[in-house]
Structures are given as structure tokens and as C-alpha cells.
């Protein structure tokens, strides 16, 4: 069963007499085991969407179904949902990790013994077992974040919402969270996460949704969108001087030669021909010119903006 289905969500805020259209006609679906990265500039409407999915903000129109249940109508839907929300710790500072897990387990409708047992298992898995008696206040930011994710998983939800899970974490802690997200997804939990760190999104997401002004302007498998925007060219860097004869040979194959570097947008066979000509000059690297999500993101956002401007005229 589809883990999450959101259909034509719309939310307009009223602020000081002005209307802010935070989300308009946003629809998406996530299947079990899938990671969807939700990307967009500040104020694009990501947090509003996540909170509408979690039942914390009521959409003006549209509906949400978590494994078939509407969180705004049926509290059973909340049992299938875990969430770590933006910018706060989502934990009791004075309680230890063990106590937090047990407390939130009961709050999600588990019995206390089961919550305790599962809590310990999660602590073990998240490598926090040695800190289980330390008040949350005294944990590092990265540990707090991992614990918040563990707490959101205590009742084995089918859908996990993570609003900027790597915000403010150092490189190692981010890697840690990244690995956990992949693992959790592999066990069948659907994950919707927002992030401004596009390299992270690229590495862990199965699909990306790019949101602008409350609308999805692209929603595609991550691998496909990256491939689509890649120029399929190769960049070859080498050391030393290339004489005229060889330069001409290489240009004949179709590459553009610059000093100590050439760009070739052709077949793999052509690439080997070039390498043969280059031999025995030392190579620095040969790589495929692959677009990264940052470039794609900027490009799409720019195009969409340009489109709105021309429409406006």
C-alpha cells in the first residue's frame, strides 16, 4: 500500500491583512522503502507541506493519506507516522535518551515494556547505548539529532518525515544520519525529507521533488534527473605538453583541446582512441562530466522563474 499520498494540498496564510500562498495544488506519492527529497529555496513551502502531512497544519483544500488513513480525521494515521521537525530538538532535555524513548513510545500508544525494549534496540543501533543515562541536554548536537530520529521511529511508523535532518551537523554526524536514513528506508519505511544540502539529497534520495512558490516544478527519480542534465561528456586532464601532431589527431576524433585538459563529448570507443594518442603522457584524471543536483536545482529554478516572468508579460 502506498505509504503517503498527498493530493492537491493548498495553504494560504493570512498575515497582517496580506495573503501568503505558501502551498498551491501540491500532490505527491511515496511508496514503502522510498526516500523522497523535498528541495526548494527558503520559503518555498516545504515545512508547511510536511506539517500538513503530519496533521499539524490544516490544508485549505486537498487531502493526505498515510497508508490509507487521513491524519486530520483519523488518529490511527498518527500511529503510522514519525516526524522530526525543523530546528528544534523534539526531545525532553532533562530526560535521558532511554527515558525519552520510553516516554514517547507510550505517547504513541505502545505499552511501556515494549517501548523500553524497542528503545534499547534503537539506542544500540544508533550507537548511543553508552549515552543512555546522560540527560539529552549534555549530548552533542549530532547525538541529539540521531536520538530525535530514533524517537520518531520508536513505534515503527510506515512514514518518516524529516525536516532538515542534517541542519547544523558536522560532516561526520551528517554522514551518520545519511547512512541511517538509507538503512531505515531499506527496512521498508517511506521517508520524506527536506534539506538545503543538495549533495546529501543526491546521495540518499530515490526521487527528488523541487518546489518553488508552493508548487512542484520537477518530480523525478534522482538518477534520471541527474543523467538528463549531464552533458554525457568526458573531461581528460593530463600533464606535460601536447605537440601539434597529436593535438590535430585528437581534434580529428572530436575533442576540444585546452592546455593540459580536453573535453570530449563522444562515444567510449572514441575516448580510448584519444587515450591511445595521449600515451605516454601522465594522466591526472579522466571523468564523466556529470551534472550535480546543485546545478540542476539552480537551472530549474531559474527556468521556472523566467517562465513566470514571460507569462506575466
Amino acid at each position, binding site marked *: 500500500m502506498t505509504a503517503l499520498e498527498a493530493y492537491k494540498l493548498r495553504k494560504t496564510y493570512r498575515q497582517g491583512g496580506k495573503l501568503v500562498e505558501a502551498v498551491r495544488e501540491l500532490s505527491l506519492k511515496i511508496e514503502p522503502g522510498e526516500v523522497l527529497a523535498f528541495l526548494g529555496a527558503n520559503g518555498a513551502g516545504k515545512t508547511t507541506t510536511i506539517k500538513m502531512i503530519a496533521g499539524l497544519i490544516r490544508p485549505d483544500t486537498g487531502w493526505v493519506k498515510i497508508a490509507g488513513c487521513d491524519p486530520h480525521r483519523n488518529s490511527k494515521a498518527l500511529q503510522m507516522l514519525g516526524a522530526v521537525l525543523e530546528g528544534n530538538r523534539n526531545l525532553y532535555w532533562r530526560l535521558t535518551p532511554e*527515558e525519552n524513548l520510553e*516516554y514517547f513510545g507510550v505517547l504513541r500508544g505502545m505499552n511501556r515494556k515494549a517501548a523500553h525494549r524497542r528503545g534499547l534496540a534503537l539506542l544500540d543501533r544508533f550507537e548511543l547505548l553508552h549515552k543512555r543515562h546522560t540527560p539529552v541536554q549534555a549530548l552533542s548536537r549530532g547525538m541529539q539529532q540521531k536520538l530525535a530520529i530514533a524517537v520518531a521511529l520508536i513505534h515503527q511508523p510506515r512514514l518518516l518525515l524529516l525536516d532538515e535532518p542534517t541542519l547544523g551537523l558536522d560532516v561526520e554526524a551528517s554522514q551518520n544520519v545519511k547512512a541511517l536514513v538509507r538503512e531505515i528506508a531499506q527496512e521498508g519505511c517511506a521517508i520524506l525529507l527536506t534539506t538545503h544540502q543538495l549533495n546529501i539529497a543526491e546521495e540518499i534520495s530515490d526521487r527528488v521533488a523541487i518546489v518553488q512558490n508552493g508548487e512542484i516544478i520537477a518530480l523525478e527519480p534522482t538518477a534520471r534527473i541527474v543523467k538528463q542534465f549531464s552533458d554525457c561528456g568526458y573531461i581528460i586532464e593530463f600533464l606535460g605538453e601536447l605537440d601539434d601532431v597529436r593535438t590535430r589527431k585528437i581534434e580529428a576524433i572530436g575533442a576540444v583541446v585546452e592546455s593540459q585538459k580536453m573535453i570530449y563529448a563522444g562515444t567510449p570507443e572514441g575516448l580510448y582512441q584519444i587515450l591511445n594518442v595521449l600515451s605516454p603522457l601522465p594522466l591526472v584524471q579522466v571523468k564523466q562530466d556529470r551534472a550535480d543536483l546543485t546545478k540542476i536545482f539552480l537551472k530549474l529554478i531559474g527556468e521556472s522563474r523566467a517562465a513566470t516572468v514571460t507569462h506575466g508579460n
Partner: protein
Amino acid sequence: MLQLLLTEIKRTWTEFIRYPIEAIAGLVITTFIFYGLFLSARFVAGSQLHLGDRLSTIVVGYVLWTLVLFIVNDIAAALQMEAQTGTLEQIFLSPFGAPKIFLVRTIANLGLRLALILGVLIIIMLFTRTHLYFSLTLLLPLSTLLLGAYGMSFMMGALALVFKRVEQLLGFFRFGLLFLLAVPIATWIAPLRGLGILLPMATGAEELRNLMVRNQSLSLTHFMLALLNGIGYFALGLFVFKWAERQAKRQGILSGY
């Protein structure tokens, strides 16, 4: 529900003793307040004969007053606290629903407070060799008073959910409470008296005073009126709180402080 209550009690207790200095300071302050109360009551009462009665009235009255005040502010205070530490939205994600959790939570808080106060009182009584009298019939009007107090607590919580900054309002409300708990509605004349019954908590407080100060026996009609009043305000409080929750979800300001 019982599991939830037990867990809530455990959490309240753990948070209380996690930083022992704070807990001990709280205890010491409570002890001093009650010791002062004992001394001044003894001074005011003068005649040794009636001391026991008067002292009981004063102490029991004071305890009730602090507890009611505590309950009425508790949900609004908890809401603000949770919003600051970033756990408020997690509570609204619970399938139990926020009203149930906050109710259970204030009950746990109240239990802890009551236990501490009773402990302190017993120690003081042992040391000063005085006795306090507490008749069990007091529990009946007291329960109506608590129902009303919880209703008011939910209403204050509702205000905090929708309007956020309510500290001033809460401060102002203390005076209102003093009025409600002290109005002698029994002495009001006909049309006003009918209105007096509609005031929150006033009927229950009046009945308590009748029992404690005037040594009257429990009047069944008064008690029933007070009970209806308590249930009415409790229901109204829940209703207003749920309305505020919907309102906050519509405006997207559940956690927005």
C-alpha cells in the same frame, strides 16, 4: 490511559529529581512558607484552645488556594514551555490527542505537588506537635472545585495556543481567581444569586468554606449545584481547547512562538 498516567507520573518525577538542588530548594521554600503559616496562625489565634481548628482552616485554605492557582496556570505554562523546548508538536502527533495528554499531565503534576506539600506538613506537625484536622467530607466540594479549575486551565491553555503571549493575562487572572474563591454568593440577593451559581468554582469554594469555617454539614443541594457547575466548566474548557487547537492548526501557529 492508565499507562499514560503512570508514564506521565514517572516523567514528572524524573524531571523533578534530575537536578536535586532545584528540587531541594523547592522543598525548603515550601517548608518555610508553611512553618511561617504555623507561627503566625499561632500568634493570631492567641488562645491555645481553638488553635487546632483555626490553624487547620488557614493551612487547608492556603493549600487549596495554591493548588487551584497551580492547576489553572498549568496547561498554559506547559504549552509555552513545550513550545520553547520544541516538544509541543510531538505531543500533537500523539494518537491520544492533546487534551487527554495535558489532562493526565496536570494530574501527575498535581499529584507530585500534593505529595510534597503533605510530606512537608507531616514533618512540621511532628516537629511542632500540632495537629491539623481534615475531614474527608471536604473531598466532595473539593472535587467540584478541581473540576472547575481544570476547566479554567484548559481555557487558559486555549488562549495560550491562539494568542501565544499570555503571561500578563495569567497574572491578571490570579486576582480574578481570588475573587471567585472568596465571593460570598450565598449572601447575594435573588437575581444575582442565580448568576453567582454560574460563576466558575465559586459555588464549590463557598461550600468548602461552609464546611471548614462555619462548621456546617454538607448540603446536598449545594453540592449538586457545585458539581454541575464543575462538570459544566470542565466540559466548556475542553470544548474551548479543542476549538483553539483547530484554530491554531488552521493558522499554522501550533508551535509558532
